[in-house]
C-alpha cells in the first residue's frame, strides 16, 4: 500500500503576544517532532488528550499552519511548497460545531462551498442531495433548515458533507464525533470506515476517545504533549502493555466432571500451564487461562471446543483484553517516572 500522507519531524511553537504596551510573550510548544505515515485506503487515528497537539498537526497537514520545522506531504505534494495542489485533493473538517453561515440553510451552505471549488449546476445539485442523503441530513430536514437551528449532530454531519463535496481521495477530520449524540456519532463512524474500506479513500481522524479509535482505526498513533509516544495497529499497541492476557470462561458442568479433572483436561488440550478452575456447589465452573498476547482468539476457540465436546454448557467467555486506555496510561505513567 502506498503512503499518501506523511509527516516528518514536525515542530511547532505558538507565540502569543499580549498587551499593546507591555508585550508579554507566551510560548507553547505544541509539537515536538511528530512523524508518521498513512497508507492509502486506511483509517488512521491520531489519539491523544486535550492539548496534545492533534489540531495543530491537522492544521499543518491541511495547509493552514506553517510548522517551525519539519515537512509534510499529501500524495507526494509538499504542504508548504504546493499548498494549492494539496487543497484540491483533501477534504477537511476542523470543528464540528462551527464553520458555516448561520443564516443559510444546510443546502445553501454546501452549495456555496461547492461553488468555491468550481462545481456548479445540476452536477453540484445532485452531489449535494447524494451527500445529504448519505449523511442522513435529508431526513433531519437539514436541507431547508438554517444552520443556526441545527443540532450539534447535524452540524457535524454537514461538516463531513462539506469535506466530501469534491469527492477528495483524502479526508482530514479533526475530532469528527466530538460531543455528538450516539446516533450521529455511529452514523459518522460507519461512514468513515465505509469510505476508507469500500471507496479506497484515506482518512486521518483525531480523537481523544480511545474506544472510538479502537473500533474504527486501522492504524493508530498516540500523541501526548506534542510527541508521538506509540504507533501501530490496535492489537500491536495492546501487546505493548502486557504480554499475557487473561481469558475467563464460565460454564455449567453439573456432575459431568470434577474440578481437578477439568483443570487437567484443559491444561493438556491447550498445552498451557497457567490454568485455574474453580467449581461451586451448583456445578458452575469458572476457568481462568493466562495466554500470551496475540494467542487469545485461538485459545478461546479451542477451550470452548473442548468444553462443548465434554458436554459442558457455556455461559460466558471473556477475553480480558487491555484497552487502549491501559496502553495510554502505561505509556504516559512510564514517561513520568
Amino acid at each position, binding site marked *: 500500500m502506498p503512503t499518501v500522507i506523511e509527516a516528518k519531524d514536525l515542530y511547532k511553537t505558538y507565540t502569543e503576544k499580549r498587551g499593546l504596551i507591555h508585550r508579554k510573550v507566551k510560548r507553547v510548544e505544541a509539537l515536538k517532532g511528530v512523524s508518521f505515515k498513512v497508507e492509502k485506503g486506511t483509517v488512521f487515528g491520531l489519539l491523544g488528550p486535550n492539548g496534545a497537539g492533534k489540531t495543530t498537526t491537522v*492544521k499543518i497537514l491541511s*495547509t*493552514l499552519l506553517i510548522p517551525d520545522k519539519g515537512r509534510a506531504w499529501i500524495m507526494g505534494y509538499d504542504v508548504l511548497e504546493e499548498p494549492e495542489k494539496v487543497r484540491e485533493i*483533501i477534504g477537511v473538517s476542523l470543528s464540528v460545531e462551527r*464553520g458555516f453561515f448561520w443564516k*443559510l440553510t444546510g443546502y445553501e451552505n454546501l452549495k456555496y462551498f461547492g*461553488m*468555491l471549488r468550481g462545481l456548479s449546476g445540476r452536477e453540484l445539485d445532485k452531489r449535494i442531495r447524494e451527500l445529504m442523503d448519505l449523511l442522513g441530513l435529508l431526513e433531519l430536514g437539514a436541507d431547508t433548515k*438554517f444552520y443556526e437551528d441545527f443540532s450539534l449532530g447535524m452540524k457535524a454531519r454537514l461538516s463531513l458533507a462539506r469535506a466530501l463535496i469534491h469527492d477528495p481521495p483524502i479526508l482530514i477530520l479533526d475530532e469528527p464525533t466530538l460531543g455528538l449524540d450516539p446516533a450521529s456519532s455511529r452514523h459518522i463512524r460507519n461512514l468513515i470506515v465505509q469510505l476508507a474500506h469500500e471507496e479506497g479513500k484515506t482518512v486521518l481522524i483525531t480523537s481523544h476517545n480511545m474506544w472510538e479509535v479502537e473500533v474504527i482505526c486501522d492504524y493508530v498513533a498516540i500523541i501526548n504533549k506534542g510527541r508521538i509516544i506509540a504507533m501501530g495497529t490496535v492489537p500491536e499497541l495492546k501487546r505493548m502493555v502486557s504480554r499475557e492476557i487473561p481469558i475467563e470462561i464460565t460454564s455449567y458442568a453439573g456432575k459431568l466432571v470434577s474440578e481437578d479433572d477439568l483443570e487437567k483436561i484443559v491444561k493438556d488440550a491447550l498445552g498451557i500451564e497457567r490454568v485455574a478452575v474453580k467449581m461451586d456447589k451448583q456445578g458452575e465452573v469458572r476457568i481462568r487461562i493466562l495466554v500470551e498476547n496475540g494467542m487469545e482468539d485461538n485459545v478461546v476457540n479451542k477451550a470452548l471446543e473442548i468444553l462443548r465436546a465434554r458436554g459442558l454448557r457455556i455461559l460466558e467467555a471473556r477475553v480480558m483484553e487491555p484497552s487502549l486506555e491501559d496502553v495510554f496510561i502505561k505509556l504516559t505513567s512510564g514517561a513520568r517516572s
Partner: protein
Amino acid sequence: MSELRYARMIVKAEFYAYMCWLKNNKLFAFMTLAWPYLMAAFILGLGTALGSLSVFASKVGVGDPIFYIVLASGVLVSSINVVDYSAWTLLDLKWLGVLPYIMASPPGLRRVTMYGLIIPAMISSAISLTAVAPVAVFTEGSLGLVKVVVVLGLVYLATIPLIGIAVIAGSLSLIFKEESFVSFLSPLMLLVSGVYYPLAFLPKILQVFSYIVPVTYVVEAAKILSIYGMPPFNKLFWIAGILVAMSILYNLIAYPGLRSVEKNVRKHGIST
C-alpha cells in the same frame, strides 16, 4: 486554473450566497431599500427645523435640496453598506469559523475576498439607489433617472476603493485583534464626506481626511448633479478619474494586507 476562471467561480458563488442571504433576511433587504428614505427624512426634518431648505441648499452648495438630499442619502447608505459589510467580513469569517475553510479552498483567502466582496457591494448599492430613483424621477423627470444612473455608475466605481479601504481596516483588526479599525470606519466616512454640511465646517485635519475618502467624491458628484440640468460630463469624468486612481492605490495596499492576514493566521494559528 486561470485567474479569470477563479474570478468567475467566486463571483458566482458569492452571488448565490448573497441572494440566499437576502432571501433569508427579508428585514435586512427591506431596510436596505428603506434606509435612504429614513436618512433623507431625518435630514429634511432637521433642515427645516433649523432653518429653511433653501438656506441649507445654498450653504452646502447644492441645487434642488430635496433631489440632492435623497440622492446623497442613497449614495451614503450604499457606501456605508459597502464599507461595513466589507470591513467586517474578515472578522465575521473568523468568528463563524469559516475563515480556515476559505483559506483551504483552492482559490484561497485573497481571491475569495477581493473578488467576492464586489458582489454584495454591487447588489446592495443597486438596491439603495433603485430605492431613491422614484423621487429623482418625481422631482426631475427622466433627467432625474439619468442622474441616478450616473451616480450609480460612480458609486460602483467607488466601491472598489471602498472595498480596498475596508479590507485594509479588516486586516489590521484581525492581525492586531483590535476591532476599532473596523467599527469606526463608516462613522468616520459619514463625518468627513460632507454630505449634509459644507466641508469647510470641518476641522482642517478632517478636511484632509475627506480628500482621501472616495465617498466624498461621489457626494461631490451628487452636488454637481443637483445644480446642473444636464449632467456636466467633463466634471464627472474628473471624479471618475480620481476614483479609478484610488481603486488602484487602495487595492495595492489591500492585497498585501490580506497576504499578511494569511501569513499571520498560518503562523499563529486560528481558532477552528
